[in-house]
């Protein structure tokens, strides 16, 4: 028991009172100074206050110098995060701007489409029973083939030979039918031959397509009295189409008769397909 108490004493003496290896102060002395300092805090004497204020000033200034790197790092971090925030918000704003631009374009397109569809609705109201409306999907035309691909096919009871109208005007006929699409052979195509009748003389003829050249009227009677500006209609002969669909007007140039179409084929977006033609057949 005695030995153990001695050991404890030696250990405490060694740890607290003796100056350790290369230690200039003993722990015990420093603890006493700390306690004295705590008590000195409550003493309100001028010299002590003066010393304290000098120490505090010194420490505050040292702290200011020491904290420069930390402040600088914080500043850089804030700057970087701010920059990144701006970068991110810029990306978002750019995307928003692009979306808005797209929406604007889309709006313009929708307006145009709306106008077109309104026109179609007006027409469909009057002819809803006989006509099917389809959108022009492909209208790539060449010198040799003038045709459209439209977005309706046998799913809408479309059949070969049906008349295709732009509004109320004849522009061609169905030559190929798929389930969801059809090919329209335009009146301007070289293979297009349409039986027509002219008002008011009621002369019948064949309207022939000539590619990019104006359409011609073939097989006219010899004693015809066709005038410039006479209206050309489908004749309905042979039961091909419903008679009386307007096509265009006659243009007379050096004893040759041409037809100017009512519709501008390059501007057609929607077509009406005359389903009634099938019934008439």
């Amino acid at each position, binding site marked *: 028991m005695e030995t153990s108490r001695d050991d404890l004493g030696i*250990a*405490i003496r*060694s*740890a*607290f009172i003796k100056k*350790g*290896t*290369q*230690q*200039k*102060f*003993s*722990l015990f002395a*420093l*603890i006493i*100074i*700390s*306690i*004295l*300092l*705590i008590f*000195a*805090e409550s003493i309100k004497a001028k010299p002590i206050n003066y010393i*304290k204020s000098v*120490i*505090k000033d010194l*420490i*505050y200034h*040292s*702290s200011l110098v*020491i*904290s420069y790197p*930390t402040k600088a790092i914080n500043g850089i971090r804030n700057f970087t995060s701010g920059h990144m925030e701006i970068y991110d918000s810029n990306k978002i704003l750019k995307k928003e701007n692009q979306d808005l631009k797209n929406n604007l374009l889309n709006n313009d397109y929708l307006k145009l489409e709306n106008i077109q569809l309104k026109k179609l609705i007006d027409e469909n109201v009057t002819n809803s029973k006989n006509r099917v409306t389809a959108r022009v999907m492909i209208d790539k035309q060449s010198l040799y083939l003038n045709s459209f691909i439209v977005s309706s096919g046998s799913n809408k009871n479309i059949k070969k030979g049906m008349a295709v109208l732009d509004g109320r005007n004849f522009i061609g006929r169905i030559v190929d039918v798929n389930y969801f699409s059809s090919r329209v052979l335009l009146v301007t195509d070289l293979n297009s031959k349409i039986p027509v009748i002219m008002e008011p003389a009621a002369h019948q003829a064949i309207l022939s397509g000539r590619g990019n050249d104006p359409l011609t009227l073939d097989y006219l009677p010899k004693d015809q009295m066709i005038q410039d500006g006479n209206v050309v209609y489908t004749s309905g002969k042979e039961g091909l189409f419903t008679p009386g669909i307007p096509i265009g007007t006659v243009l007379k140039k050096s004893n040759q008769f041409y037809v100017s179409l009512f519709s501008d084929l390059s501007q057609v977006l929607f077509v009406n397909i005359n389903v009634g033609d099938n019934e008439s057949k």
Partner: protein
Amino acid sequence: MSFAQNKSKSKILSYIPLLILFFISLNGNSTVNLNFFSINIHYILVYFWVLRDPKLLGYGFIFLSGIISDVIFGIPMGITALSLLVVASVAAYVRVVTVRISLVNDWISFLPALLLANLFYFISMYYSDLPIDYIYLMKNSFFTFIFYPILWSIFSLFLNFIKS
């Protein structure tokens, strides 16, 4: 690397604990508060180096560092110094009575050091008429104790590097 170069490298590196001690005191980073966590780096630093290599962290510097912390945090001068010296005292005692160094030994002996230091801190604050946040003090002690092995590992690696 020559012997002289090795010696100078070791000499320079040996000042790092001291630099950290004064840096955290002057910068006010002696206690790291992260949302719920609160860790007293000061206690761990002092305890580890007094326990493992007291030559690198003199008692006078520990005292001075405590005084600086007190001034920075605006508490009466001597309170943190006293707490740190209590931690250093326990570490010095453990160093004298311990033969084998291990993390578990150090960690377990850190607990009385922490409790004693906080007791002295609490008594000093109590007599200074300053408000004491008991929950904070408890939380700080708990997380400082939990965090000790992490810093112990880092400091041990560094100590081995200096000695190598």
